[in-house]
């Protein structure tokens, strides 16, 4: 009988996390030692605490990896899934990634297309990625939402947003 609570999946996650933070610590340390020394520096200097943080993070990462590796040996096998994973569940990861791509596209296009067109696109694509359908209603909601946000930010709060293809509106 294996102890309950710690599964191989949880240990695997901790090992991946530990490796990731160890890599961050190494990269951060290499960048920290490249910070130039100043003639007016105090005893610690601009490098001092960043190097300490990197060392502490590396130490904690090693502890995490070691602890997870030990736990993995005694960990319980993952419980068999009680729910059949359907196509919708399988697409969740892609949808989440799509949300990021969606935001990145907004950042890339907003200065060219302008606020209204970009934000309408962002709303429409987010509705789709969150499980909604792209139909006349959702496109209407996206267009209306973009108009509402434009009224709120540009007209009411007087906060300029990129005009893009429709400068007369801004």
């Amino acid at each position, binding site marked *: 009988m294996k*102890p309950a609570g710690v599964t191989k999946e949880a240990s695997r*996650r*901790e090992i*991946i*996390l530990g490796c990731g*933070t160890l890599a*961050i610590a190494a990269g*951060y340390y290499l*960048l*920290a030692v490249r*910070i130039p020394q*100043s003639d*007016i520096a*105090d*005893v*610690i*200097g*601009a490098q*001092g*605490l*960043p190097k300490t*943080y*990197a060392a*502490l*993070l590396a130490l*904690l*990462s090693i*502890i*995490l990896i070691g602890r997870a590796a030990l736990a993995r040996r*005694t960990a319980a096998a993952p419980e068999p899934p009680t729910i059949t994973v359907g196509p919708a569940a399988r697409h969740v*990861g892609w*949808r*989440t990634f799509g*949300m*990021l791509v969606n*935001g*990145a596209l907004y*950042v890339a296009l907003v*200065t060219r297309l302008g*606020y209204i067109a970009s*934000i309408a696109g*962002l*709303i*429409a694509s*987010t*509705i*789709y*990625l*969150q*499980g*909604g359908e792209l139909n006349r209603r*959702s496109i209407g*909601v996206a267009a209306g*939402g973009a108009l509402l*946000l434009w009224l709120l*930010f540009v007209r009411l*709060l007087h*906060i300029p*947003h*990129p005009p893009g293809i429709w400068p007369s509106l801004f």
Partner: protein
Amino acid sequence: MAVVVLSIIPAAFGGVAWGILGGALPGISPSITMALLLPFTYSMAPTTAVVMLACTYIGAEYGGSIPAILIRTPGTNAAAATVVDGYMMKMQGKAGEALGISLYSGFVGGLFGMLVLVGLTERLSAVALAFTPPAYFALGVLGLSVIATLAGESLVTGLIAGLLGLMISTIGTDPVTGLNRFTFDSPELLSGIPPLLVMVGLYAVGDLFVKTGEPDWAKATSEEARIKFPSPALWKRIARPQLIGSLLGAFEGMMPGGGGAVSSFLAYNEARRWSRHKEEFGHGSPEGIAAPEAANNTVACTALVPMLSLGIPSSNSSAVLLGGFLMHGLIPGPLLFVSHADVVHGLYVGMFAGNVAMLIIGYLIMSPCMWLVNRPKPYLMAFIYALVVSGVYAIQNSIFHVGLTLGFGVLGSAMTYFRLPVLPMVLGVVLGFVVESNYRRALVISSGDYRTFVQDPIAAGLLAVAFLFVTGALVRRLREARHVRSAAGASV
């Protein structure tokens, strides 16, 4: 003064309304509701901005009980305890009464919390006026250690999250020499990464990404939207659980990592223990709603005690409020009471008004709330996303900031996947400057003598408490691990 009050009152009402609407959406926590509002407060007067944020917290704590009662889905973590009896009352056709008890108890808890906040904050900050640079450094270390040990499932992951936050805080110009650190020749990074972007990214965007895979929540019928305030007999009956909830909320709110959820469940259990109608708990007891709702609204006020007096936030929501202070150049802590006493007193007035506003708006806003809860989730999420990117851009008209916020959103969802707690990281970002600048200042003053940290009695005391917290947590986890191992050995 009259002009200030005139701007505070609408801010309090607006913040409460926003908070109730945000809190009523399942999965949108008070901290996310506040993070969404942060960019909009940038152009406001400091007092108006912090009042609006604090009142959002107050409103969100009540708002969370609306879906908890109507659709058995807590809008916030703190409302989880309300689900048990709230939903049972709804099933008995008493949804209006349940909502009324929740609103009234939240109001009572909020007023009690205000008394504690006003009574304790200035006294605590007067003590903190004696702080020297070593003491400030020690205070930052203590705050980080306590949160890192209490937040999340493991001490190591809590400390890792705190350290990552401290690392983010080193980006930008060095506080002593003025050298650029980790800026990659980017002019946008010279002034560092604003904590506001980290908070909006980690809380709001990260949550949005995580919720992509979650199904839509249940919907409520509009006939349930009429609030009925408790009768005098019921007032009398729920007075004791309200007191229990308020006392526990006051204590838990000030404890780092305590928060509304812990206090609500504690209050629920204690109210049942002291009740004359124990058998009703779990079957639609009004006391089972009054205690947790009084507790979580007390927390919304008392969580500000350590944040205002020492500059150490005890919960996600108070960390976001701290971000609001920093955004306006206000640094919470003892000096705030000297340099910006008007802001603190304005905040008190605003929060008092916010508690009264909750009673009025909570009654009036039910229909819009129901309308919002009944919208399809994809539409709501799309508008939240649009609001985040538009709001972040509006702060400094910077597309770079929008990209950075999205980056922190990715980090936030990765942290959720790896079960890395967010609060220690936020605290690391917020306290990083305080820790580093005071550490180095202390060593400059002492000519590099590290004994200054143990010679200063306040610093030594605070560092000792931090050490005790970390070692105590370590010992507790080791004991738990040994217990699990011995249990496993016995069962083989």
